Every structure is written in C-alpha cells, then in structure tokens.
C-alpha cells in the first residue's frame, strides 16, 4: 500500500509541476491545487498507514491497549487542507482579477514587472 501511495504522490507532484510550467494562469492554479494535495498525501503516507487500529482508549484505562494508528497526521492534514483551501480560494480570485485587468490568461503577457 505504501508503495502504491508513493507512486501516487510522485505522480501528483509531477503533474502539479507540469501544470505550473504551462503558460495559462488557470493551469497554474490547477497545478497549485494538485501540489497541495500531493503534500497532504505525502504526510498521510509518511506518518505510516495502519489499518483498522482506531486510536481509542478503552473505558477506565489511561492508555490504549496495543498499537494504534497515529491520529496526529490526520490533524496535520486537516489543518493543511483548511489553509490550502483558503489560499487557493484567494488564488482563484486573484487570477480572475488578473484576467480582467490584463485581458489575457497568458503568463507571457504578464512580464511588465520583471526587470
């Protein structure tokens, strides 16, 4: 399972970088979306994938008996998803405004501020 996930993560990163290198700003944002998802999956995979081991403490006990899945990774991903969602919402509005102002969705038309 880990191997499969590793390939999925790698594929997502590759696709994201490819999209970000395109000239269209819409594809740029699609690339950013893929990129943040790739990072989330990476955390999920790196933290270890345990199946059917809910991190629950039995009633009356202080520690869970036996090994449990690590819930912290899920918390990290959840935080990262929320942050990524907010930032990407901003990015979508930004490219919309940029399209309105510049009148093109081509990165090559947006070089006025470089040098």
């Amino acid at each position: 399972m880990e191997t499969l996930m590793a390939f999925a993560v790698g594929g997502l990163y590759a696709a994201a970088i490819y999209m970000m290198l395109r000239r269209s700003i819409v594809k740029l944002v699609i690339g950013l979306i893929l990129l943040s998802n790739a990072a989330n999956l990476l955390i999920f995979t790196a933290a270890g994938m345990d199946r059917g081991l809910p991190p629950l403490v039995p009633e009356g006990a202080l520690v869970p008996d036996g090994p449990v899945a690590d819930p912290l990774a899920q918390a990290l991903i959840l935080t990262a998803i929320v942050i990524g969602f907010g930032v990407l919402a901003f990015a979508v509005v930004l490219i919309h405004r940029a399209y309105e102002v510049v009148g093109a969705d081509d990165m090559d038309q947006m070089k006025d501020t470089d040098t």
Partner: protein
Amino acid sequence: MTTVVALPVIVPLLAGAVSLALWQSRMAQRVIGVIGTLALMWVSVDLLLATWREGILVMHMGGWQAPFGIVLVSDMLGAIMVVLTAIIGLPVAIYSLSGVSARHEHFGYYPLMHLLLAGVNGAFLTGDIFNLYVWFEVMLVASFALLILGGERAQMEGAIKYVTLNLLSSVLLLSGIGLLYGLTGTLNMADLAVKLRDVEDPGIITVIAMLFMVSFGIKAAAFPFFFWLPASYHTPLVAVSALFAGLLTKVGVYALFRAFSLIFDQDVGYTHTLLLWMAGLTMLTGVLGAAAQFEMRRILSFHIISQIGYMILGLALFTPLAIVGGVFYIMHHIIVKANLFLVSGVVHRLKGTHELKQLGGLYRTHPWLGVLFMVPALSLAGMPPLSGFFAKFILIRAGVEVQSWWIVGVALLVGLLTLYSMIKIWAEVFWKAQPENTDVKAVAAPVQGGGLWLMVVPIAGLALLTLFIGLYGQPIYLLAERAAMEMLDPSLYIEAVLGGQGS
C-alpha cells in the same frame, strides 16, 4: 509569568480584530493602528528584557507539556526579531496615517497590517515546526491581500508570481515537515533536534534538510530562488513595500537560522558549505541586478536580495563571531531597508514618480530629505560610523578568521557596488537638476488629510536608530552575542523546552 511570550502575537491579533470590527470608521482604524503597534512595541521590549534577565522563556500552550503540546519559545534570537518587528510596525503605522489613501484604507489596510505583524511574530516565537508553517501561512495570506490592495495591473502581475512561488515554498516546507514527522514522530523543534541524533541514516536527514533549505530560501529570496521579489516588491503601496522589505524575507532568514542551527546540525560540512555558496551568489546577483535598474524601488528591491546574502553568510560560516555578525546584520538591515523604502515614498509624494530619469533637484528644494536618505543609504553600503559598517565589519572579520578569502572578497566587492547603487540614487534623485523635457505629472500622488511631517517623523526616527546602533553598538552587540551563544549550543534551547516545569 510566561504569558509575556504570547503577548507579541496576541496584541496585534487583537488590534486587527478590533479594527476589523470598526470597519466603518476610518478614524478608529487609524487610531488603533498606532495604538496597537505602540502596545506591540511595549510588550516586545518587555519580552526582550525578560528573556535577557531569565534566559529562554517557554510557554506551553493549553497546559500540554512539550513535546506533546505546542510551545511558544522566546530565546534571544526570537526576542530580538520580535522587537525588530515592533520597531518596523510602529513607524509604518505612523507613516500610513499620511501615506495610505482613504481608498486603500477602505479596502482594509489596517486589519491586514495587524494580521501580518501577528503572523510574523508567531513565526518568530513558535517552537513547533508545524506551527511555524501555520504562522507562515497567516503571514502570507495577509501579505497577499496587502500586495494587491488597489488592484492595479502591475500589482496583479507581481502578485501572481509572488503567490505562486510562496505557495510552492509552503508546500515544500509542508512536505519536509511530513517526512520529518514520519522519520521521528515529533514536531517539537527541540524534540526533533534530540531525536534526529539517533537516526541511523544520515542521508535521509540531508535530503529533508535540502527541502527546508529550498523552502526557506524561497521565502528569504536567496539565490537562486529570488525571482518573485524584484517582480513584486515595487508594485504595492510604499508603506506595504517597507513592511515587506523590513520583515517578510527576514522571516525566511530567521527560519534558516533556526533550522540550520537547532535541527539540522548533523552534517554541517555539507549543508553549510552549500549555504556559503548560496550566500556568495545571492550577494553578487542581487547587487548586479540593482546596478541595471533605474527605478528607485526596484533598485532597493534588488538590494534586499544582496543583503540577504550577508545574513546567510553569517549562518554559513557557523563560527561564534559569524553568527554574531549575522544577527547584528539582520538588526541593522531591517531598520535601514524599511527606512529607505519609506524615503522612496516621500520622493513619490513630492514628485509623483519613482523613475530616476524623471527625478532630480530634490536636494535644492528639500535638503533635509537628502540627509535623511543619506543616513540609511550610507549605512546600507557599510560606511562608518553607521550601523552597516559594524555589521559588515564583524562578518568580514569572521570570514578572515576562518580564512575563506573568496567570500571575504565577494562581501567587500558587494559593499562597494552597494555604495555605487546608493550614490546613483543620490545623484539622480537629489543632486542633478530637474530634467525639463519630461512630463512629470504635477504631484499625482494620493495626498490626503495628514501632512508630510507624518511621513518624515518615522523616517527620522529610524535614521536616528541607525546612527545610535552605529555610535553606541555595544549593547546591540551584546544582544547578538547572547543570541549566537544560544544558537551554537542547542542544548540550552532543548533543556529549556523539554526540561522545564512549564507554566
């Protein structure tokens, strides 16, 4: 009482929330802007003094002991950076009273400014690496919105590059954090430092360290990751530019200092040699980029990059004196650079442009502005007796001591070229006669209520501070020395976070 550690984050957050609640009242937002940053200054200095007296202060959030809970840690480096944030925040808030138009205030300038300060301070104080990522994002979101305040074409174009590269950097940081967590099962920086010592395979640590180096390198605008900076920093309001120039890239530098002194000190020979090359090339490319520019804020933007090189140089040499120099350089640079951007704003107010070719004759009409420009400009170039001289002197001496002659040569050369750029601005903007055949728009700048003096007072204050550091640098040097001592001996930090009884 360790709540003092959280106050530099809480105060600007609170000020931001209150000014957001008073959205309708411009006057109230302006008053809170000044009061909030003044209060921030108060709590920051208080934190610095407490840290100086009692050593590293640790606050366990929610009462959860480290390494399980999130900690806020104020060591000397963090406390110094927090005070510097306040030192920039207050003048920019005063400057904004006159320098930010009513239209921009209606877009929510003040709440965003407070949010940015809160994010920056959070990044400086947190002792948890995932929390660092969160504060980075808080800071970035505020900076995105500030960058496009006004919605002009150049701002949109600059913002797309800024947003893309900063998001890329955040994702790399997140990936690095994920791998680090998979490797050690902890996020607390002190605990990470301990656990990484026991990892058998040093190769994987170096790989993760590279992820962090690239991510923080993008944020710090180091070579070869700096392209977003000159594309965007000259587009927003001048007050925003000054805030960014003073603080944002320095958060990246701070993160580099923190990560590569505390967490990744296993393979210093490899990582810090790489940093050394990065530093040298950052200095050179930045200063050469500036030489080709003829727009005031673009020149200053490129100089941010070259100066970042000096700070990284301090970290890369990794001797006690070099770290002292790096910290001293950060202190000097934040003050000077923000000040130069503020001066460029006054020039724009007076002449309606930043283009050197259309400017001129300002020394004849406003000699005091020329003097106020000269102090930070010469300080940036490293002329004695200003703060930049001692900052460069310490670094170069550290370079001589470890006998890496080429980096010393680069540092000296870049100092000289910086002087060239500053003299170029001086000659074009202040000294030469006003060119006649250009169609300078008669003061098109957004002038409103408050007078010019509101813009000049913060500049004068920062210039005096530069002079003060130059003429009376001993206490500043002591602060930097203490910070360097703590950085080179991570066991102090680890002891304070993991061994303490908590609040």
